[in-house]
């Protein structure tokens, strides 16, 4: 309840009358379309895109920028705040990117809030109704303890790797989408721990602390290639295009999807664990949205619709894929040994044929989404053979 002491122009009769007298009968300008100067890109701007496009105050050295001149204050040594030096990729207009999920802050954050609210209800129901009683003890203590816990580090590491991509990306709509993808990774790591905290409350024998998980992540052979990928991309790669491609376009679409979907989501059920699939569904959705953005950025914007630098960009994407695919292969091969330790074995799912089908599913999906549209050549059967040699 306001004290009413403060004089507000809208409701104070004297001021309101004075203001009303100044408003002309007809608007002074009939055109109300926002940023009328903007290029359409590959589709009509959404309301959000009209609000955001060209918010980035960049120099005109970055193709597509609206500003003129040079950035005013630079790093010591002379590095500008945003510069084309930050990636080997080239574009005729960095401002052409449009997020295919059409997410902007409000719907994005609302969606995540809804995910959180649903999780709260699901966890309560799962715990109160005694659903947890179905869970296999060994699955809980040998898999959800160290293995699921270790996967938290993969997600958290990839979250950190996104800091430099948000910092250096070359246009506004692109930066928004990347920030959301980075935030999703932080969330995915935290949701694993949220689940583990709940398990710790329900099961006296479950230790939610992260000591064993971290030990597994840093020392176990099953995580070594994946961990080395994460460490490399987090600590040593500066090219933000390379980072995005390597994270979302290669590693996470093959290794991450396998671990989340083919391993945890699929196998939890046969171990009486109905909670993990629910939690991982969120991470799968987040990955899907990241993958769509990657497809739009690399496939559509930088290759298919790029008039000048398409060949150049394809060359780099191929080179990066050739660099990171073997490491992803090694990561999956090392991880796949985990099937030996599964408490419950089900024919057709955990047997060699079942696992090979899982491997084929992720690699075929990757091939269809990323390799084929970009004309990236790789030996699919050799990939499957190599991965399965770790089984």
């Amino acid at each position, binding site marked *: 309840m306001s004290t009413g002491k403060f004089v507000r122009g809208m409701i104070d009769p004297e001021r309101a009358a004075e203001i009303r007298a100044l408003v002309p009968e007809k608007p002074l300008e009939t055109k109300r379309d*926002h*940023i009328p100067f903007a290029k359409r890109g590959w589709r009509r701007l959404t309301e959000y895109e009209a609000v955001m496009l060209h*918010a980035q105050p960049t120099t005109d050295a970055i193709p597509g920028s609206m500003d003129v001149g040079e950035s005013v204050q630079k790093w010591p040594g002379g590095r500008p705040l945003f510069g084309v030096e930050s990636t080997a990729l080239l574009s005729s207009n960095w401002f052409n990117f449009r997020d295919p999920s059409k997410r902007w802050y409000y719907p994005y954050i609302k969606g995540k809030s809804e995910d959180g609210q649903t999780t709260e209800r699901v*966890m309560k129901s799962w715990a109160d109704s005694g659903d947890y009683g179905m869970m296999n003890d060994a699955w809980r203590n040998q898999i959800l303890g160290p293995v699921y816990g270790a996967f938290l580090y993969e997600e958290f590491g990839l979250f950190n790797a996104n800091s430099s991509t948000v910092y250096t990306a070359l246009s506004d709509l692109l930066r928004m989408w990347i920030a*959301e993808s980075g*935030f999703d990774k932080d969330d995915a790591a*935290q949701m694993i721990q949220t689940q583990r905290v709940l398990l710790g409350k329900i099961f006296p024998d479950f230790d939610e602390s992260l000591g064993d998980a971290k030990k597994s992540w840093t020392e176990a052979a099953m995580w070594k290639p994946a961990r080395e990928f994460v460490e490399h991309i987090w*600590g040593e790669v500066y090219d933000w295009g390379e980072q995005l491609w390597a994270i979302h376009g290669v590693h996470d679409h093959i290794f991450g999807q396998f671990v989340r979907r083919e391993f945890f989501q699929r196998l939890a059920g046969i171990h009486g664990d109905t909670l993990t699939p629910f939690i991982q569904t969120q991470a799968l959705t987040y990955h899907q949205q990241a993958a769509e953005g990657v497809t739009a950025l690399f496939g559509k914007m930088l290759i298919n619709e790029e008039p000048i630098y398409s060949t150049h960009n394809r060359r780099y994407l191929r080179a990066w894929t050739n660099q990171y695919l073997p490491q992803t292969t090694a990561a999956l091969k090392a991880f796949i040994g985990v099937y030996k330790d599964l408490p419950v074995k089900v024919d057709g799912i955990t047997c060699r044929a079942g696992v090979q089908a899982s491997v084929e599913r992720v690699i075929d999906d990757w091939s269809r989404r990323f390799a084929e549209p970009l004309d990236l050549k790789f030996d699919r059967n050799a990939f499957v053979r190599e991965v399965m040699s770790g089984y």
Partner: protein
Amino acid sequence: MASSNLAVKEALKANPVPSSVDPQEVHKWLQDFSWDFKAKGGKYPTKYNLDVNTREQFKLTAKEYARMESIKEERQYGTLLDGLDRLDAGNKVHPKWGEAMKVISNFLEVGEYAAIAGSALLWDAAQSPEQKNGYLAQVMDEVRHTNQTAYVNYYYGKHYYDPAGHTNMRQFRSVNPLYPGVRRAFGDGFLAGDAVESSINLQVVAEACFTNPLIVSLTEWAAANGDEITPTVYLSIETDELRHMANGYQTLVSVMTDPESFKYLQTDLDNAFWTQHKYLTPFVGFGLEYGSKYKVEPWVKSWNRWVYEDWAGIWLGRLQKFGIKSPKCLADAKKDAMWAHHDLALLAAALWPLTGIRMELPDEEAMNWFEANYPGWYDHYGKIYNEWKSLGFEDPKAGFCPLVWMMQNGHGIFIDHTSTLPFCPTLSKSASNPSFLEMNGKRFAFSEGHGERQWLQEPERYEFQNFFEQYEGWELSELVKAAGGVRSDGKTLLSQPHLRSTDMWTLEDLKRLNIVIPDPMKIMNWQPVH
């Protein structure tokens, strides 16, 4: 009450509800989320070692952050799109203010946008996972704020009777001589440099100090002038800023406990304070006092409360016992708080065709208010405004141009090479100590010594083209037209020197002034001082 609650808490802790997980229960594990490896560490240059054990004060998880922000968004857009829409709020704003918001919100957007990347730089530099999580939330907040500040222009563009300028300021600002300054302080200053220096610029000075008057106090001026749109958005923006201020504070904590790091801090603090103050003090004061019909309180008093007594006193003052000292520029900053916005207002009026807004000179009532609160104002500024008015400042047929008047009366305008702000040495009442220098065959102008020091110490950071250099040789009406400064009738200017809907200036009127943009550092007879 407090003690009984504590008992409840303690009981809950001993016997936790097993079916739910509090966000803070998850947050307490964040410090264990990281691991050590050879290549770990920030990717960008820094002088500092950030402590891996630094904590974060708000203890948010991603999901709880999303829930909280989602409520903010629902309330804000609900108010705008339902309540204020039905009230026709866009047309209940005093035009003086509705025009000022064309520039204020757009310029603030520059800062919010740069802060996305600035927070990402800190997310990269921080070693403590809690800090990284806090900086990440700030990245998302800054995405939100860019949306919000832009949405104020977008909303005005849809609902206010003069959308021109609200819709296309992102293009026209390129020719506004005040724009490079906001790019420097709010843009580059937030992200182009040492992460800790950026943090001090962004979080410790711009956010903890200047957003209070810029975003909180400004809503009082808005409401007083009939604008309920801006308070709805800006007060909601500021609900995120306190976490950013805490982020900035923890950045300081994370380097203060390390003597090797601490020794670099005072230099960055002094530089960041001057960098931000140099732009924000005049810009905010100008926006509030000259962009309003109905006054709230003198800018210098707001400055005294928010900047000097509370920010300096509560933030820096308490840190003095840990070795933080007063910025050496503080006395000059206070003088600027009194006068710099009046200096800027005079130049903005002189440069009106390039501002993109309709502005009018202070009327008698405003002049009285200025004189009462800034004794000596009339003799210095008021007289000039009255002379300009009598010479036909508003009249498109009079052929009067204040820029020409200034040159004819020996009042040269230069651009300060560090802050990029225009200044007029002969008419300045703020902390002024102009100097003109030549190095490697190029001439540079500085309005005062603190900025000159910054340039002399790090010249390669300030290699840029100022307004005069960039547009030298352009005829004024050609420049305005090229940059989108004309309305949809193809002739009437976006910018106007009055608020009426009659006698509006056209391109032809501007062309008749026959102004070709000069570079004063080239055309004047500069000689070495011996």
